[in-house]
């Protein structure tokens, strides 16, 4: 029998605010243990939380960028459970009145993954276990999080990966988070269940906790899918449980500990007051949402004539997209700019992080100037290429490497002289050509281009060379 995968995501994203959600400590990643702490974020007796305004703004922007409805009235609740990484023995979160509800993310195959809600909450500290001892660091405690809860609308590993990548791109674009999975600023809990192909009722789901790599998410889901299918095929039943993914063995195993039979006893936090957001405020925040990656791709393809592939390669990273748009303003053919970026610039940005931070010497204005020279026929493509390399190395503008005379082009006599010189000094190539070896003429043209330092018009040169050989 054929089975279908049904998956939903609960994604935690750390917000890039300056300070923690309820106190003025920094949210900087790392730092010596317990050096980003104060009485409030270690939960000393008598302290009170004060909500960071920016956290609310960021969460609303995340909601607007994912087509959510923003609640005018919302509140903070206490989620009670006792664990050493949680200093107050409750996490301040949102239970029945989240800030954002009913959004969606649209995948390239046109399917919409519905978002049930986005709510704000505080992160917990870190536990380090050594030789059975437990070391506790609260630097991360109180860092603001949004939890993005999807409906179980995902049907394949590819959809899952695209969903996570899209979320990542959007959150980075609107600047609410750097979404660095390896640093834990984006973490996913994945709910997986299976059902016979064509069935529309949900099977029993398992939850794979704290996934922090897209690759592992894919592997874990595949493993869990086949594990569940095997179970059912062999007459067994899937048991609802929380799992941990073990990347070394690529297996999932049940998690014990704080989850066992929890009853969170949610109630409104009496230390915090109601959050009310007016439609005006929501509209003002909507104005701050930039053009999103998938919108850019569409525009690059339709208006700028880029290929789907090139368009998404550029739109994927906000900084690169902005660089591309500035560099191609007013140029005849934006494709040229795209080619320079995807060709020469990307060669210098190996990792995703390199592309994300996009730290290069050349400015968009400099590239724009270079491409315009090509448009005006002042320099030829291959000269432009080598020049761009020099620009990228040094950060200097095109004028540093291409002189006025270079750009003046080559007058006809000079060109003809060079062609004759080429014929004289390359008898071998001339012979070959006469023997019908069409390609041989190319080396003669190459000679002319070289001598003219790329200024000669290759087509005209070829034509003239052929005319003298005959």
């Amino acid at each position, binding site marked *: 029998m054929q089975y279908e995968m049904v998956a939903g995501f609960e994604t935690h994203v750390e917000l890039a605010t300056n300070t923690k959600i309820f106190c003025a400590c920094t949210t900087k990643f790392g730092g010596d243990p317990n050096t980003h702490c104060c009485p409030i974020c270690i939960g*000393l*007796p008598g302290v*009170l939380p004060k909500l960071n305004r920016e956290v609310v703004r960021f969460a609303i922007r995340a909601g607007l960028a994912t087509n959510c409805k923003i609640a005018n009235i919302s509140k903070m609740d206490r989620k009670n459970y006792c664990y050493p990484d949680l*200093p107050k023995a409750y996490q301040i979160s949102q239970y029945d009145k989240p800030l954002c509800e009913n959004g969606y993310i649209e995948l390239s195959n046109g399917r919409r993954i519905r978002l049930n809600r986005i709510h704000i909450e505080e992160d917990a500290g870190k536990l380090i276990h050594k030789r059975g001892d437990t070391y506790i660091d609260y630097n991360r405690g109180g860092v603001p999080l949004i939890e993005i809860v999807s409906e179980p609308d995902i049907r394949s590993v590819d959809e899952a990966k695209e969903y996570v990548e899209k979320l990542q791109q959007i959150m980075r674009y609107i600047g609410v988070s750097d979404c660095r999975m390896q640093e834990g600023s984006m973490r996913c809990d994945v709910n997986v269940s299976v059902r016979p192909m064509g069935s529309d009722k949900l099977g029993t789901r398992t939850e794979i906790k704290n996934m922090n790599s897209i690759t592992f998410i894919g592997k874990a889901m595949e493993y869990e899918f086949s594990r569940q299918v095997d179970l059912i095929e062999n007459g067994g039943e899937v048991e609802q449980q929380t799992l941990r993914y073990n990347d070394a063995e690529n297996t999932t195993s049940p998690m014990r500990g704080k989850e066992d039979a929890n*009853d969170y*006893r949610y109630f409104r936090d009496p230390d915090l007051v109601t959050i009310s957001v007016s439609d005006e405020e929501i509209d003002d925040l909507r104005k701050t949402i930039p053009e999103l990656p998938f919108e850019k791709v569409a525009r690059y393809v339709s208006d700028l004539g880029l290929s789907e592939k090139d368009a998404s390669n550029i739109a994927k990273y906000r900084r690169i997209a902005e660089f591309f748009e500035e560099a191609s303003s007013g140029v005849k053919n934006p494709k040229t700019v795209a080619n320079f970026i995807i060709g020469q610039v990307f060669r210098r940005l190996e990792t995703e992080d390199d592309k994300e931070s996009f730290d290069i010497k050349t400015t968009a204005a400099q590239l724009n100037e270079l491409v315009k020279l090509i448009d005006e026929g002042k320099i030829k493509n291959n000269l432009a290429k080598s020049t761009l390399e020099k620009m990228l190395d040094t950060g200097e503008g095109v004028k540093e490497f291409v002189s006025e005379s270079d750009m003046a082009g080559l007058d006809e006599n000079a060109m003809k002289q060079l062609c004759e010189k080429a014929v004289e000094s390359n008898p071998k190539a001339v012979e070959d050509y006469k023997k019908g070896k069409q390609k041989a003429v190319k080396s003669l043209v190459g000679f002319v281009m070289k001598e003219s330092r790329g200024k000669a018009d290759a087509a005209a040169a070829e034509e003239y060379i052929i005319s003298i050989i005959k």
Partner: protein
Amino acid sequence: MAEGIIKRLGKMLDEKEISCTELTEKYLSAIESSNGDLNAYVKVTSDEALTAAKAVDEKIASGESRGALAGIPMTLKDNISTKGIETTCCSKILEGYKPIYNATVWNKLSGEGAVLLGKTNMDEFAMGSSCETSYFGGAANPHDITCVAGGSSGGVASAVGGNIAPYGLGSDTGGSIRQPASFCGIVGLKPTYGAVSRYGLIAYASSFDQIGPLTTTVEDAAIVYDAISDYDPMDSTSRGNCGKNVLSSLKNDIKGMKIGVADEYFDGVPDDICQSVENAVKVYESLGAEIVRFKLPALKSALPVYYILACAEASSNLGRYDGIRYGYRTANYNDINEMVCKTRSEGFGAEVKRRILLGTYVLSAGYYDAYYKKAQNLRGSIVNAFADAFKDCDVILAPTVPNTAFKKGSAISDPIQTYLTDICTVPVNIAGLPGISIPCGFDGSGMPIGMQLIGDKFCEDKILNAAWVYENTMCGEVFKPSSYGVSL
């Protein structure tokens, strides 16, 4: 005319009759001789007090003008955080805990030159009505040390009533300022919720807790209230005092003031207490006030509503005592979970455990709607009932407690019976209203009886003025200084 101690001591300082250091030493030695009997203080901070006193003396010497509270010794309930000074809520679980920050109220008062004599006794985590759940044993009543001082702010009441502190700050969640004030024959003010910052007050029930003064006179209460009531950005529920200076509102005239009397407050209250409150009603009538009699049926559910909500919040507030970051930690355990459970089981007393369990129960799956949610809605109707009542009257007059100070150890072992004695005080906390308890007579055995004046939100000025007028007319008959402590 009852002159407050704060002004009297202030005059002595200003007229150089006594130096702040001498005054502080006077109180410190009084504590030394009396605290054995009263057990009001759980920690005496002599060094800090003398340092603070010296600083004030220098200011006075340098001719700087002295603020109302500068150089006046005082005390704080042991659940108000004081940087570097042990703050335990009189619980074993906070043994040795020294806060690394100050409660906002203490920042304000120490900033004005207040001199902290020490931290005073209380029921463990403010859960109790006799101060007897304190890890350090209960405080005694200065009028009869075989009787309790009341609770939970029993230590402050005992210290102020016993003249080993001119005034003190307590906290009131279900009557913890007013009830011990009534038992010890002094004045206790529970401000409007949000008038005084809760930052640094170790939480019992966050939506009920308020810090307030315990003093010997209404004027003193007004002075201290003016000093501590303020908006605090650290407390999201803080409102401040709406710009009112209540001291200036004490004026000897209540002609035409409407004083409400609600039958429910007198249900099951002993005759001698009803009688002395009724006498107060006559006094007010004679002073030209208009008495409005009415009913407050919503009060019937006040006690269970209070215990359900307060314990629910407490069960969550007290989850943090896990032996990891501060306080007591059990000696032997096999894993962290066992460490936490043993620490809490050994660190908390019986009453605290009972309330944590009740709170957990009413919030737990399957019971939330029947208890917590229902109680929240009833809280709403009690709030509305008072709002309606204050359309027809300026203040409400009621007994503070349906009993007077009882013998130590006689507190009925049945918790419910003890809870029932909070009947007159909890409605004010449920509705977040200001309430003040002042002495209004004595029972058969000469123990003080208190009456309570309740106002609408942020109407401290009205209840203080009504209390002040009564005090000025009656202080001779209703106030009896105790034989303990500093005599001025």
